[in-house]
C-alpha cells in the first residue's frame, strides 16, 4: 500500500511495467513538441511579443504621448483626444487611474509601434473583442508592434485590478480602412 513502507524493500530494482513506460515516453515526447511549438511560432507565427521594453519615468512617457497628441489629433470624443498617427510611427497609450489616454485611430493593415506604460499602478491592456491582453507597469515602456487586420471600433478594457475605479477604465481604438 501507499500508506506503508514499500513491500519490496529494494523497490528501486523492481522492473517498470511496459504500459507505464510507454505512457512516460508519449508524455515526454508531447512535452518536447509543446516546447518546440513555441519556438516554431517565433519563426512561422504572426503573433509574438517583441519583448522590447525600456525603463522610463512616467513624466517622460506622458510627454511623448502629449507630443504625439499635439501633432496628430484629429478630433475629440467625450473629452478624449482622438489621434491618427502616421503608419509605422511610435504611438503612445497612457494607462492611468482610470483611463486609457488618448483614443487611437489606426489604418487597417498598417503597423504601429504601440508603447504602453502606466502613470501610477499596474493596469492591464485588454483589447476587445480581439482579445489581446498584456500587462502595463509603471516605470516600464513596453513596445508592441501591432498590425490591425480588420476595421472597426475596439474597446480597451483594464484587466488588472487597479482600485475602486477599475471597472470604469475603458479606452477605445478605431481602425479605419
Amino acid at each position, binding site marked *: *500500500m*501507499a*500508506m*506503508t*513502507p*514499500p513491500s*519490496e*524493500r529494494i523497490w528501486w530494482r523492481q*522492473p*517498470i*511495467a511496459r*504500459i*507505464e513506460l510507454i*505512457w*512516460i515516453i*508519449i*508524455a515526454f515526447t*508531447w512535452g*518536447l513538441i*509543446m516546447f518546440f511549438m*513555441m*519556438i516554431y*511560432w*517565433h519563426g512561422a*507565427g*504572426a*503573433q*509574438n*511579443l517583441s*519583448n522590447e*521594453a525600456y525603463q522610463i519615468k512616467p513624466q517622460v512617457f506622458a510627454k511623448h504621448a502629449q507630443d504625439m497628441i499635439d501633432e496628430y489629433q484629429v478630433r475629440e470624443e*467625450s473629452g478624449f483626444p482622438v489621434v491618427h498617427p502616421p503608419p509605422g510611427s511610435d504611438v503612445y497609450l497612457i494607462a492611468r487611474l482610470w*483611463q486609457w489616454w488618448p483614443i487611437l485611430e489606426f489604418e487597417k493593415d498598417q503597423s504601429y509601434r504601440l508603447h504602453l506604460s502606466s502613470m*501610477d*499602478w*499596474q493596469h492591464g491592456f*485588454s483589447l*476587445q473583442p480581439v482579445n489581446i*491582453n498584456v*500587462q502595463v*507597469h*509603471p*516605470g516600464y515602456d*513596453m513596445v*508592441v508592434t*501591432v*498590425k*490591425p*487586420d480588420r476595421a472597426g471600433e475596439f*474597446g480597451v*478594457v*483594464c*484587466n*488588472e*485590478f487597479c482600485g475602486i475605479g*477599475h*471597472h*470604469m477604465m*475603458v*479606452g477605445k481604438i478605431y481602425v479605419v480602412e
Partner: protein
Amino acid sequence: MSSLIDYRTCPTTGLKVDRAAEKLIKANAVAAIVFLAIGGLFGLLVALTRWPAVHFLPADMFYLALTAHGLDVLLVWIIFFEMALLYFASAILLNSRLAGPKWAWTGFGLMLVGALITNVAVLQGKSSVMFTSYVPMMAEPPFYVGIILFAVGALIGCCVFFGTLVLAKREKTYEGSIPLVTFGALTAAIIAVFTLASGAIILIPTLLWSLGLVSHIDPLVYKTIWWAMGHSSQQINVSAHVAVWYAIAAMVFGAKPLSEKISRMAFLMYILFLQLASAHHLLVEPGMSSEWKIFNTSYAMYLAVLGSMIHGMSVPGAIEVAQRSRGLTKGMFEWLRKAPWGNPAFAGMFMSLVFFGFLGGISGVVMGTEQINLIMHNTLYVPGHFHATVVAGTTLAFMAITYILVPLIFRRELMMKKLAMWQPYVFGIGVAGISVFMMGAGTLGVSRRHWDMTFADAILPFDYPSAAFLMMGLNGIFAVMAAVGGLMYVVIVVGSVFFGKKLTDDEKPSYPEVPPESAAVSHYGSSESLKIPGTAFLVGIFFTAFVLYYFVNWKYLSEIWPLS
C-alpha cells in the same frame, strides 16, 4: 524518552498514534475548515456579484470580498489543512512520536494569529489589494504582517515534519523506506520551504515600504519573486493532493502503486522542475526575453507536468489492479462501474483526479504557453483554470480524505451519511461548472477581478458579446451549487466532530468501510503482465483531449491581430 509519550493503538490500522500529534492534526484541520467556510462564503458573494442579473455587492465590497476570498481559501484553508496532512503523514504513518509538539503549537498559534490579523486588515476596508498585493498598490501594514506571521508559522510546521522524519528513522519506527504518501508529503514540505522563503524575501521589504521605511519597490521584481512563492505554493498543493489520492486509493482499495520507483520519481520532478515556473505568470510583462520565458515555462513546467501525467495513470491504474485482483475483471470498466461510488472518500478522490487532469491540467499548460497567454492573461480564464486545479483538485481531495480522518483521528462516527454521500457530487460538479464557465467567459475576453462587465459607469462604452453574459449567469448558478456543496461539507464535518458518536480507543468505526486486506493486491501480476486496459483507455481520452485543445488554441491565437 519515548516511554513518556502518550500513545494509543489504532484499532483499524494497528498503528501507534501519538496523542500529541493527533491533537495537532485536529486543531489544524478544524482551523482549516473554519477558514474554508468563511472564504467560501466570500466566494459565493463574489460569484453572485459577477452574475449580471444579480450583481449583489457594491463595488468596494466586491473588491474587499474578492481579496478576502483569495486569502482565506488559497492561503489559510489549504495551508492549515496541509499542516494536518504533514503531521498525519509523518507521525501517524511512520508509527512515531511527533518531534517538538511545542514547536508545532507555536507554529499553529502564529498561523492563526497571522490569519486573523490579515482578515481584520482586509475587513477594515483599506487593504482591498487582492491576495497578490501587486505594488505599487499599497495595503495597510497589518495586511503584510499577518501574512508574514502565517508564513513563519507554516515554516515551523514544516520543520516539525522534517524533525519527525529524522526521529522516526533514528528510533526505527518503520522498516525500509518511507511510504509513498509520506514521500509525497516530503515533496510538498520541501517545496514549501522554498516557497515560504521567497514569500519572506518579497513581503518583508513590502511591509517596510508600506511603513514608509523603504521608498520604492520595483513592480516587476515584486511580481517575479512574489510568483516564486505564489506558483510554487501551487506545487505544494499538487504534491499534497496527489499524496491524498494515493492515500485514499490505499485506504479504500488497499491499492498499491504500479511502481514505487516511477511514482517517487514523479514526485521528485515536482521539486526539480518547478521553481522557476513563476515565468508563466510573466509571459506578457515588459522586459522578459522570449528565451527566458520559453526555457522557464517548458524546462520548469513540462517536466513537472510530466510528473502529474505519470500520477494520472498510476493512481487509477493502482485502483484498477486492486479491483481486478478482487475479481472485477469483466470488460474494460467493471472495476470502475463497481467502485464504491457511494463512499464520499472515493467519489471525491476520483472526481478530483478527473477534474484536475481534464480541466485544470490541460488549461494550465495551454495558458502557460508563451504566445497563447496573450489571449488569456488576466481574463476570467485564469480563475476558471485554477478553480479546476485548486478547488476541484486540491480542495475536493482534502474534503474526501476528511471523511476518513474523522473516524480515525477525531474518533467520532461520521454523521449524516446520506448527505455525505452526495456532498462530493454537489461540490465537485458545482466547481467543475464554475471552472468551465469562467474559462468560457475568459475566452470571450471577460476580465477577471472586475465588478461590472456592462461598464455602465465608464465614459467610453464597450459591450461584451451576449454569450459572455450567459456564461456569467451559468457561472452564478454553479457557484450556488458549489457553495451548497461546501456548506454540506462543513455541516457534516463540524457536526460529526462535535456531536458524532464517540468511539472508544479500541472500537473500529463502521464507516467508511475498513480497507480490505491488501495481501492479494500486493502481488497481483508481475510488472510485465500488468493489465490496466480501462486506465489506458481513460489516459488515451485525456491525451487526445489535451492535444486537440492545445492546437485549437493556437488556431484562436492565429486569428488575432498580428503582433511583433
